């Protein structure tokens, strides 16, 4: 519905009561709508528009912003040295997404076969570690895997190795950290999709003589596709921006897209360039969401519902 139509037709969407809409109820209505609308306008819409605006601005020698239109930032966005960073980020992101999917699908599939009580408990067990501090948990991995970590120390004492293995502070460390922190966002939508499948459908397919493989390929997989796509989006997009993971697990040497943006706001102080890179990330996000919605994806699924 266009805005014009809704102004002309102030009828409530759901007719909750047929009392005349007098001044009091009208005021209550606006008191409910106003806070959320204003908050989202001032702290989401305006800041996002300002990022777009800023991506076309210049900066002076000291890192100050000069309100002078330029396309220079976007030229810099596509500089060869930066392209390499995006490729690296995408590669890490894709690897993370694929590994998360390969773990999550069977995991959610097996849990969905369990009884209601076991399901509730197992899904609660998935959520528990993810609400405790991300950085502390990453440090848990470092404690295990770094050069002077538990694994290397034990292996050396057992005489199995003579030089510590490089298990973290490389690309493998970054992928491990990303998979670890983002796994839940793949498990939840896939589990929800599996859990919603009507048992009768599977039984009907069995009665009609379908094999287990056929049931999976022709019935379960298509029905859970929206969940899979939602999970992939909610793993891939954040992975591009998680600069602290590459910083901590990659030892700070591997640059990713998130680190590149962060740098423009910390070290390099080039806000317009940081904004231009952010605009590219926003456009990429929108592109993925449009594809998702075109394929019948439900936006609420992205929040884990």
């Amino acid at each position, binding site marked *: 519905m266009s805005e014009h139509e809704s102004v002309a037709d102030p009828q409530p*969407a759901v007719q909750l009561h047929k009392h005349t809409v007098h001044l009091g109820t009208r005021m209550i209505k606006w008191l409910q709508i106003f806070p959320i609308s204003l908050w989202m306008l001032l702290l989401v819409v305006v800041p996002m528009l300002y990022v777009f605006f800023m991506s076309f601005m210049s900066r002076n020698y000291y890192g100050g912003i000069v309100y002078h239109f330029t396309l220079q930032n976007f030229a810099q966005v596509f500089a060869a040295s930066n392209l390499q960073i995006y490729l690296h980020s995408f590669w890490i992101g894709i690897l993370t997404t694929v590994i998360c999917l390969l773990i999550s699908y069977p995991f959610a599939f*097996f849990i969905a076969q369990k009884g209601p009580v076991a399901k509730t408990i197992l899904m609660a067990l998935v959520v528990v570690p993810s609400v405790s*501090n991300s950085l502390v948990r990453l440090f848990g991995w470092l404690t*295990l895997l770094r050069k002077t970590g538990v694994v290397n120390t034990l292996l050396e004492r057992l005489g199995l190795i003579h030089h510590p293995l490089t298990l973290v502070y490389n690309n493998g460390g970054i992928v491990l950290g990303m998979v670890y922190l983002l796994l839940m966002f793949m498990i939840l939508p896939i589990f929800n999709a599996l859990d919603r499948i009507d048992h009768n459908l599977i039984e009907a397919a069995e009665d009609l003589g379908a094999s287990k493989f056929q049931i999976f390929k022709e019935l379960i997989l298509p029905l859970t596709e929206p969940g899979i796509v939602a999970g992939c989006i909610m793993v891939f997009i954040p992975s591009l921006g998680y600069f602290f993971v590459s910083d901590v697990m990659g030892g700070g040497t591997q640059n990713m897209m998130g680190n590149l943006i962060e740098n423009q706001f910390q070290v390099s102080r080039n806000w317009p360039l940081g904004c231009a890179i952010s605009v590219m990330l926003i456009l990429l996000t929108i592109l993925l969401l449009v594809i998702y919605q075109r394929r019948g994806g439900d936006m609420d699924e992205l929040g884990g519902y």
Partner: protein
Amino acid sequence: MNKRLTARPWKNVFIGLTLLFLYLPVVVIIIFSFNTSKMNILFEGFTTKWYGLVFHNYQIMAALKNSILVGVISTALATVIGTTGAVAMSKYQFPGKKTLDKVLYIPIVIPEVVLGISLLLIYSLVGIPLSLFSLILAHVTFCIPFVVLTVRSRLVGIDQTLEEAALDLGANPWQAFSQVVLPLLLPGIISGAGFSFALSLDDVIISFFTTGPASTTFPLLVYALVKTGVTPEINAISTLLMLVIVIGIALNAIHQVRKMKQEG
């Protein structure tokens, strides 16, 4: 799903291994919080001294206090704004409703680093100093959409004729809402609030851009320490925090399981 596809041992092994992966670093943190050595290398002896020492560590306590303060205030604000918003959006038609609906997804799907820098930009434009205040504004912003989603998913299951009936029986709109709709919504509101608090308490990226040096949070303190070495005191306080969260989630899970049993 299907009874004939019931669990085989290897399926449980896969579930177990995945959970082991999720819990391994958590277990490491808990074990090393009882380690006598300050180096997180090998377990050298059992002690509970870090649990006492951490409460005298000014730096950790200040960061934790900031995190909890921001978490509580942001959760309260986001819950009120998100709940009233979700109710209003399901009830009324108003200009810009579709746009608002779309905008609410932005904080959920946009990479956090982008939301973080956009808020930093607007703070510097308007002249809001980076402080606990700017931090709370940021946290409320990314919590509201999650509250709206949880409350909305609950609203779908509520029979809307109930409120109508209350109004026909002479209740005023506030009574009809607070005594009929609100109690039915409460589980959704509580899980939305719990979700918000957990998000706020764990946020690294958005806080990184929206807080000042005088108002650092617990995750940001850990971020700074991870490079030089996390002390067992951090392990100890993290273990305590986890304990609180586990109790919260366990109570919720027990409640759900009981309800399922009651419903048969």
